[in-house]
């Protein structure tokens, strides 16, 4: 369960109105893609959902409760860049969340607790196609591998809501389609609700169960300051995509995926 209710949210920076009267109800386990022209406030909206920014007006509820005013464990995030920690190995990056929650004082696990967490982390690392790279640092990974690592790191904490800000924007098309397959499978298998910002309309329609467009209603230069963006289109994909339910119409395209096979940017089999 992780329903998101956004009621009449406004966001202003000083004089500039960025978002105006945004209202949206996202049902549990939906996959919402946010699209819109550059600078219209998609990232701002995601930051508000994350708790990094507070709305100027309006309320946001997760499962009926107002969202906390700072980021927390219930909402995972993957940014376009800087989502992984450069000083930790792949394994260290994935483990970090568990170490935070299971070791309040020193945030480090030892002995049996660590072995169990490592085992769990390795499974997830394999699932995102990074097995063999556990001991590598992010600087030694390709862009696509780093984003998969960021996904694994966020998913390890089993967030209710996963927020993605153009997570695959910097990847080349081949790697992107592989990561789409992975994303789709993870969405089907986990319990989370996904909100993803993207510039790629095709990506939006390939992955999402619902595509929401943000736009300024008035966009003449002299009006830019005074009018914010709001939801102008809200398209539910038809036939409906439901998390965990195979699609009746095009199962290979929309249904849960079982096996992934090899990836283009998998760690080389030769070892290094």
């Amino acid at each position, binding site marked *: 369960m992780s329903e998101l209710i956004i009621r009449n949210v406004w966001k202003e920076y000083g004089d500039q109105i960025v978002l105006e009267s945004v209202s949206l109800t996202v049902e549990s386990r939906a996959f919402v893609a946010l699209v819109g022209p550059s600078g219209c406030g998609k990232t701002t909206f995601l930051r508000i959902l994350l708790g990094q920014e507070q709305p100027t007006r309006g309320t946001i509820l997760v499962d009926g409760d107002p969202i906390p005013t700072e980021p927390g*464990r219930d909402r995972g*995030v993957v940014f376009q860049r800087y989502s992984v920690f450069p000083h930790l190995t792949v394994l260290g990056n994935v483990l*970090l*969340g568990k170490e*935070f*929650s299971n070791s309040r004082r020193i*945030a480090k696990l030892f002995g049996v607790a660590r072995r169990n967490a490592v085992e769990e982390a390795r499974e997830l690392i394999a699932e995102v196609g990074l097995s063999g790279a556990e001991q590598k640092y992010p600087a030694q990974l390709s862009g696509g591998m780093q984003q998969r690592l960021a996904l694994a790191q966020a998913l390890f*904490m089993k967030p209710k809501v996963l927020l993605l800000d153009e997570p695959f924007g910097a990847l080349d098309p081949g790697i992107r389609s592989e990561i789409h397959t992975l994303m789709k499978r993870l969405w089907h298998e986990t319990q989370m609700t996904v909100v993803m910002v993207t510039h790629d309309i095709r990506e939006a329609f390939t992955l999402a169960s619902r595509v929401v467009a943000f736009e300024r209603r008035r966009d003449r230069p002299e009006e830019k300051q005074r009018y914010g963006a709001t939801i102008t289109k809200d398209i539910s994909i038809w036939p409906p995509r439901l998390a965990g339910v195979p699609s009746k119409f095009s199962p290979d395209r929309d249904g849960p995926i079982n096996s992934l096979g090899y990836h283009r940017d998998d760690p080389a089999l030769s070892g290094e």
Partner: protein
Amino acid sequence: MRWINIKPSRGTQVILLLLPFVLIIVAYTMGSVARLTENPNDKLLPSLAGFADAINRVAFLPDPRTGEYLLWSDTAASLIRLFAGLGISTLTALLLGMAIGMLPYLRALLSPFVAVISMVPPLALLPILFIVMGLGEVSKIALIVIGVAPTMIRDLTLKALELPREQIIKAETLGGSSWQIALRVVLPQVLPRIITCLRLQLGPAWLFLIAAEAISSDSGLGYRIFLVRRYLSMDIIFPYVVWITLLAVVTNYILDRVRIAVFPWSELEKQA
């Protein structure tokens, strides 16, 4: 080919590296020979044999008055002061720098204060230190700390602030508390920086140490140089200066090696 694209080979590199040093020695020898032929008792530019004799005296023969091997006892006295000063500065910088960089309240309180303090010329405080703390070790170590700590604090604050906001947010979504984020995300990433910062502060630290020793001391490399100045003993001053330089160069090199060995990822990041 353009000049910016012409690169020396390995062998040429070594020759080029040695060239300035060889040139200095040759120029010095020529000058020294010229002066000594004119006046064999000239003290300004002693011959190389004169240096060898003086080094033998201070390094390998006990001082007739105290029975100590002067070069080594001076080195020990100076290094203890230097490392005590740098150690205290490093610890202070680490604690304060991180705290100021991470906590907005502490930043508002201390950031302008540290900026002002770092502008006070430390040598102007030396008389006050001597009056308040006496002429012993404490005032000398305090001078080094006052001289280098503010810069180090500011540098570390900047580094902590430079960490991409996304990383801190990500750590929050993984459930990290302020303390845990400081410990596992910020601290490991500022440690390599403090080593680099320490290397850059070696020069100023030696400066303050020698200044303090010159004014009031009964041992130390700076003390010795200023003592023998009265007898125009260039044959001792020059080797001492070279020795101090050598100590600084070696410390600098070791610190960089330590950084690469302990934080391998920091070197990867540089190349990436």
